[in-house]
């Protein structure tokens, strides 16, 4: 589904990703772990198409489509979704307006009919219930005045509404207490119920989210490169040993 080849990315003349290789197949859940500043968020943002990154070399292929040539909205229409580490507050646009516009644009791109107001409302109600959200948030402005936990929950709500093919979750666990973490993980696992045309990438600093979203593969991104890959046991090993353990191994890998 997703193939990243030798990706080198600079931000303001500084090389952040120094040759990332990653392959994610349909049906798989991958976790990308790593210490702060290792390039995790850069990778997530580049997949989603954020501007301000210089792609020095390398390729990103999504279902045989060259992603790097597409603006973010086209990527979204192809089914790529980024759950933001820091969801943006947009006063003046309600959550309902955002979702309705987004869903209908994506449906239009897929050649499907737009949802009418009733269909849309009942779909929203159904998903909100799953995430234990109250209906009043629909008329509230996007993330405006939301607590950290509410913002992250709102990201997962949007994800469930948009039903992406490739979901990238950028540190969705940061700033969450254990109850919120469980609700968010539960949301992701709902998406996981049907993985027939879907893959999920979970970017995280800590292992604890992976207790609830159990990955098929774990990669360690360190200093702009994936230095180690393994199964879920790798996450536990990192938890026990810390990232320092990799720093010493860094030189022998690759």
């Amino acid at each position, binding site marked *: 589904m997703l193939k990243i080849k030798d990706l080198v990315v600079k931000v303001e003349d500084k090389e952040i990703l120094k040759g990332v290789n990653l392959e994610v197949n349909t049906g798989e859940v991958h976790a990308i772990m790593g210490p702060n500043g290792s390039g995790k968020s850069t990778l997530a943002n580049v997949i*989603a*198409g*954020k*501007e*301000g990154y210089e792609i020095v070399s390398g390729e990103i292929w999504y279902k045989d489509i060259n992603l790097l040539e597409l*603006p*973010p*909205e086209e*990527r*979204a*229409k192809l089914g790529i*979704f*980024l759950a*933001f580490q820091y*969801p*943006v507050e*947009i*006063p*003046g*646009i309600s959550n309902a*307006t*955002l979702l309705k*516009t*987004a*869903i209908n*644009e*994506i449906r239009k*791109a897929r050649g499907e009919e737009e949802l009418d107001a009733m269909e849309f409302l009942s779909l929203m109600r159904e998903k909100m219930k799953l995430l234990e959200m109250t209906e009043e948030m629909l008329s509230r*402005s*996007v993330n405006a005045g939301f607590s950290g936990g509410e913002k992250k929950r709102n990201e997962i709500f*949007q994800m469930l509404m*948009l039903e992406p093919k490739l979901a990238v979750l950028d540190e969705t666990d940061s700033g969450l207490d254990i109850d919120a973490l469980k609700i968010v993980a539960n949301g992701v696992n709902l998406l996981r119920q049907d993985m027939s045309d879907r893959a999920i990438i979970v970017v995280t600093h800590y292992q604890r989210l992976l207790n609830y979203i159990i990955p098929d593969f774990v990669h360690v991104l360190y200093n702009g490169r994936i230095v180690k890959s393994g199964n879920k046991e790798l996450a536990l090993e990192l938890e026990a040993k810390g990232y320092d353990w990799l720093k010493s191994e860094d030189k022998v890998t690759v």
Partner: protein
Amino acid sequence: MAEIIIKKNKIDVSEWYLKNFEILEQHNNGSIPDFIKTIKKISLQKLIDIGFPTQKVEDWKYTNIIQIIEKNFKPSNLTEYWKNSEIIEKSKRAIESDQIISNLSSLQLVFIDGHFIEQLSNAQKSQNLELLPLQKALKEKTEIIQNHFNKYAQIENGFNALNNLFFSDGILLNVKDNTIEDEPIVVIFIQSGEEEQIINPRNLIVVGNNSKARVIETFISLKNIPNFTNTITEIFISENSFLEHFKFQNESLSSYHIGKIQTQLEKNSNFTSHNFTFGGLITRNDINIVLDGEGAESHFYGLYFVKDKQHVDNHTLVDHAKPHCLSNEFYKGILAENSRGVFNGKIIVRKGAQKTNAYQSNKNLLLSGNAKIDTKPQLEIFADDVRCTHGATVGQIDEDSLFYLRSRGIDEKNARSLLVNAFANEVLYNMTFEPLRNKVSDFVIEQMNQILQKLDK
């Protein structure tokens, strides 16, 4: 072009207006009430004395009005296009297709080139609500006219004096005590554009005790040629009453518009103003209020969305004359292309006006590198127990918000439009009259789409 004489702080009134005033006097042939004659006489002298402001005058620092004075605008009192059935028909269609004012209310007064057009109006009135053209009121409602007309608006500049000399028509609205009028009163001023004219609309609104009403003033033009609208609305609100006023400046992009709204508030009354500027080449609004009774409250909301070479200047003055009053002001501006904006928010807290609460905020969104805004709060506080806050911001469309929306599948253009609309919504949320709010919101989206389409070309 008129020959004009520019001195340091003053542009002398041109022969053109003096000559036309003489013609008008002969034309009226003594048919106006004596006290109006007196007002005109004083105003004429004042006009000769003070002339029109240059940019050396602090309140006009950013707005150059020379091109308005240079033009020989024909006073619409002396033209008769308003009698032409084709123009009346055209006006009717313009009203029906107007995105903002069409189908808003059953109470509607229409003026073409400053003249009342009975066949397009519906001034159906009850015992508790007098609504009629001002010219008619000058003859029939002498008591209320003598008590209130020209009692609040001072001559602050030559334009105000010019209105006193040349005012043609407008409305008298008298809401009597204990009257709640739910139907909005729509007042439409149309520039026919058949000639380069000046119209001087004049309105007087008087609200009695324990009453409530809503007035929507709108200005449109039929043609895109230079016209000049110079308007004054005076408002008096008695105890425990509420008036909500809307103004839409939606004239052509060649129009000049100078407007003043002067309000006097009595005890425990409330005035809410919504001031929208979308049209006009040069627009200057002065919105002034005196909170002259304890417990009075004023809310000023404004939105200007301009493009091309438009220039919009909003000057507001909130005068806290009595203690325990509240004033709240929130103006937002969206400036595209080569447009320019000016915001000046003056708050005076008089000696003894203790426990005053005054809030002011002006936020601006620049959509182009060539757009410009000058924004200034001006606080003059002579009491010690007051709470005043003010703030101003100038910014561009937030790139992170833009990416957020695009990452959800929304096209860049659409996303920009949504963000501009969101910016406007923050001020539109204060319109409790929902049908109008939805219309204005749609209008803002359409304005934005037009600007974005131009960028594509």
